[in-house]
């Protein structure tokens, strides 16, 4: 099947039910999305499929055929940070950092919809992403910083 990831088309020969995560990681070498739980609970594997937030560990690759898949590598890089990534750097959110690809992809999609969120809206949007190190206070702060930046303030 053909998959479009971060603007590049790839031809892959995989079972239709292989989760998108494992196609990205093991077949294409795109390792920003992480394996955490395998059951769509922790959110470390979060990517966008046609702009929609999905848990790639539980999303069959065949469902993403013909769609535009975006991983954390596709929204910015160390030399050209996305506003949300820049906020994550400024606030020094990461400890182990393993959940942060998923946190950032969830936050970036959320802020695209709502660039002036209330505290409750931030809590609602981000509470399905697990962090074992306890970076939640810094995630909240980084989202507020990114929102300010996205509003051009």
């Amino acid at each position: 099947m053909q998959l479009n990831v971060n603007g590049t088309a790839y031809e892959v020969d995989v079972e239709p039910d292989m989760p998108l995560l494992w196609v990205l990681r093991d077949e294409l070498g795109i390792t920003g999305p992480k394996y955490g739980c395998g059951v769509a609970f922790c959110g470390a594997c979060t990517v966008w499929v046609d702009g929609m937030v999905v848990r790639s560990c539980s999303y069959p690759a065949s469902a993403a055929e013909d769609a535009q898949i975006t991983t954390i590598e596709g929204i910015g890089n160390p030399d050209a940070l996305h506003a949300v990534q820049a906020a994550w750097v400024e606030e020094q959110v990461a400890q182990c950092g393993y959940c942060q690809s998923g946190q950032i992809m969830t936050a970036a999609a959320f802020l695209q919809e709502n660039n002036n969120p209330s505290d409750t809206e931030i809590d609602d949007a981000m509470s399905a992403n697990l962090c074992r190190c306890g970076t939640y206070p810094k995630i909240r702060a980084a989202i507020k910083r990114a929102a300010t930046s996205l509003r051009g303030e």
Partner: protein
Amino acid sequence: MGIVSKITRRTLLVGSMAVAGGVAFGIYAYKSPQDNPLLDDLTEGEAALTPYVMITAAGVTLITPRADKGQGAYSVQAALIAEELDVDLDQVSVDPGPPSAVYYNTALANEALPFSPSDQSNIANAARAVADAAMKFIGMQITGGSTTVADGFTKLRAAGAIARETLKAAAAQESGHDASQMRTERGMVILPNGERISYARLAPTAAKMRLPENVGLRDPSSWRLIGKSMQRVDIVAKSTGTQTYGIDLRFDDMLHATVRRNPANGGAMASYDASAAEGMRGVEKIVELPGGVGVIADNTWRAFQAANAVEIEWGDPPFPAEMDAHWATLSRSFTAENLNSRPLDAGNVEAVLSDETIELEYRAPYLAHAPLEPVSAVVQVGDSRIDIWTGTQVPRFIQANVADLTGLKPEDIHVHVQMMGGSFGHRLEDDYVLHAVRLAMEVPGRPVKMTYSREEDMAHDYLRQIAMARVRGTARNGQVHAFDLSIAMPSVSESQMGRQGLSLGETDPIIVTGAGDQPYSIPNYRVTGYKAPQLAPLSSWRSVGASTNAFFHESFLDELIHAAGADPLEERLRLLNDATARGVLEAVGDMSNWGTPMERGRGRGVAFARSFGTPVAEVVEVTDTGNGIRIDKVYVAADVGRVVDPVNFDNMMKGGVIFGLGHAMNCEITFANGRIEQENFYAFEGMKLYQCPDIEVRALENGPAVTGIGEPPVPPAAPALANAIYAATRQRLREMPFSKFVTFV
């Protein structure tokens, strides 16, 4: 079998005084070439000035041998070297270095002993000297015990200073100028005439020079880095998905693998039938392992699928199959025969508590470490060497154990330590690496990446100890008068060190740490540890003994203070006999406006614990909303003597509080039919973002020694929460997780 393997199989009697004295591993003495493992790989013109500073034409690499599992260890170690070396973190590379005896952990040796950090008696100091020698002897290059900064604070600065002075001496030899007239700055030696020579250019000359033995360290007033907020060396990579963790590694021609073992950790496999799995797409090989099978395939998911398709009959669990039996074992362990230590016995508890007493039971469950990155290892087996890439806290154990397994020499086992997606003590084990090696031996020459599924990782976690406490006490004249705490748990050291063929002796200080070593003066004060028989296999879980014992101690102290009709913070301040400890408690009192009235349905709780030498106090504020308990706010203060990086300190404090609260709220590991019932995060949630309180942090620097911060914020969190819930609801929680008794919103 190599020397390391032989030594690690020995029992180390560190309690014995026989070999005390003669411990001479000066931090300034890096004299003989065998002390420096970096020299092996150098080529002409490159220098390894101490085992911590490597300079090549490409630039300066700082060796940071304590592994980074998220606690910022690489940055903090690099900053300590860079402070004296006069380089900045944006111009150096950071590398964990090879496994080597020279990177042994002095501070961990101290922590393993049954003496409090402030105990400077001859016996305590002699025992520390012996343990230090033992650690050096076997070269325990271990990351753990919140020791990275405590161990490295002087050692790493000295390494930087020695390297700097050597570079100046090299510049003196080349230029003819006097070294004492030179300055150093941003990786350059600056000559008296203003000419600048880069460290890289001086490396060939410096490599041939004798290192100075005594170099003074700079006064704190002149520090450029220590105490200032730094940008972590890994922060950009970790914010862009470009940080490579062990699980992300890729090599040409690499195979993917997984294992499936008896869900009762340590149980055998009676029989298996792999015929269905063998025919599945992508499967290269199915391999029998101790207690299970491994699958080698061309993709991790295919390996997972095939592992699940193997039909297996499991052997019986090597511990009681049902949870009730675990608790019953603890319940039966409060006997004279099981008495393991009594570190505190002031006044006359027996006489005072003969009649009017409160007698209660407390419980703390098994817990999993469950870092978000499951364990993995890439292994390549060559003709005469094995390369292993993995996130680990114990590279030297891996080296010794893989040598034992394969018959190769330890120096032929090359362990490349990787960045870790969390650990909390999980990666102090190396059984997963041995499984990966067994699999890679089936396909010599090809790199094999073995990854545990989340379910395999949860089922084979070496758990936080289960523990039970029995408490008695009484108040008199508005004060706590008698406090008698008895704790029973299986020995964590015996379980964990036993798997490495080591023993630290019969007495396990972990059974009483966090309770029997606290700086309170209570007129009648006794803490007793009882060693229960081994049950499920155990390991160090962030803050180890203190994670259960501070809950028992600080909750019951709170009960007695309430029974006395005293104020929980004021009475603790009265009872604390240590100024540094009182300082952190006064700080949270000040931060939280302790004593000011709260609305109905709200409550404040306080707790204190000193662990790993660091005193920490926490105040938790909660509201009983009617729909459940909401944690509104936490105030936390700690005294580490000296904060190396305020940003990292803040992150560790908040993270430690959240870790402690989250597990106390809703986490436990239980057994049914010999299996862990919690298979994945949906049954082991911890705190979620919406539940996270605002956390206010204060750092104090009054303590006499530089101590760690990775673990100490954890122990006071659970009792502070329980005490706050009591203040708000008058419901006393004596068992974790609290979600068995209250709802959290």
